[in-house]
């Protein structure tokens, strides 16, 4: 008679993804490119932020490229290309309409993307505050974005995205007077999830807070090696306190 047996396996499910992410990280180290994984809901203003900030960074001598991911269309890449920003679009439709980026399509995109001469690479993830938080795509830093119209409780509803990010950009702050929105509640929510995260408040249309954010990016560029060679996007999320901290 056959007996039931239990066989230990102990395999991390995301190991294969982590191995590819690790290769990508070495590629960035080799080319001295600091990569940012941008995570947010759809419509929080990731592309608008890049359209606003990247031309300013370029004037200050920092050259950036963008990998834009969406389920479908090349709309984001088209918008960024108008600003002469090197950009490649990944549509996850061909990867089963994935709601998030994994390391494999990023590696594939990089095969056709010359990154020599770039200082920064922004990986604009699929608009989604849940799934992208779980997948390492080889970035050095994670940036979470939240627009004020989404409500101040989102960090508590989607804690992982805020926990694994080193800095948060709160966008569309010019709209606060028209909303029932409490900044105090927002920061209470953020601090519960990640007490050491750096926060920036911006409005791209009204040019609020852009200068502080640009200064932060310039500071990151100065400390590039520190971020390139030490992974700060710990799965355990113990965010490190570095340099500039926004007061609120």
């Amino acid at each position, binding site marked *: 008679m056959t007996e*039931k047996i239990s*066989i*230990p396996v102990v395999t991390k*499910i995301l190991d294969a993804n982590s191995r590819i992410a690790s290769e990508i990280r070495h590629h960035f180290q080799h080319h001295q490119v600091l990569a940012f994984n941008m995570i947010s809901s759809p419509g929080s203003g990731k592309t608008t932020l890049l359209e606003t900030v990247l031309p300013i960074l370029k004037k200050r001598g920092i050259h950036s490229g963008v990998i834009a991911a969406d389920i479908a269309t090349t709309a984001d890449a088209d918008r960024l290309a108008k600003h002469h920003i090197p950009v490649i679009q990944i549509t996850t439709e061909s990867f089963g309409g994935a709601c998030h980026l994994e390391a494999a399509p990023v590696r594939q995109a990089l095969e056709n993307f010359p990154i020599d001469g770039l200082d920064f690479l922004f990986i604009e993830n699929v608009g989604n505050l849940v*799934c992208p938080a779980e*997948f390492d795509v080889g970035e050095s830093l994670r940036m979470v974005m939240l627009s004020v119209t989404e409500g101040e409780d989102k960090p508590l509803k989607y804690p*992982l995205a805020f926990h694994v990010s080193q800095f948060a950009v709160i966008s569309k702050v010019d709209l606060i007077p028209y909303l029932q929105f409490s900044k105090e509640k927002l920061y209470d929510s953020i601090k519960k999830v990640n007490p050491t995260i750096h926060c920036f408040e911006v409005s791209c249309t009204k040019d609020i807070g852009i200068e502080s954010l640009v200064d932060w990016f310039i500071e990151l560029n100065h400390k590039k090696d520190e971020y390139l060679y030490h992974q700060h996007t710990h799965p355990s999320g113990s965010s490190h306190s570095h340099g500039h901290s926004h007061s609120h």
Partner: protein
Amino acid sequence: MHEASIAQTILNELEERVLLGQLPNSILKVNLRVGRFTAIVPDNLKFMYDVLKVETQFSETTLHIEEIPIRCRCNICSNEFILSEIDFVCKHCLSFPLELLSGRELFIDSVEAFDD
């Protein structure tokens, strides 16, 4: 929705291990350990596993998920405790950041099979 991708990865892993002779053909149950601080909804993952297994040799298997609590240690007072709600501040001395000891797991722990 990324649970579909996770479920597919589990099935791929099983298939590879069966091919390599590391696991028998007669798998009945797959035991998964999932931390509470992952972006995984266990019911969604089970649902996607059941959808995706149909066309595979694992169509008769069941996925069992054991959830692991979020356990933290305070770097200042060294107290360890389970976080029942998301608030990464020490319950004892109100310091931060906390070291996350568990809660981010996502792995296949074991499989159950007939001994053939």
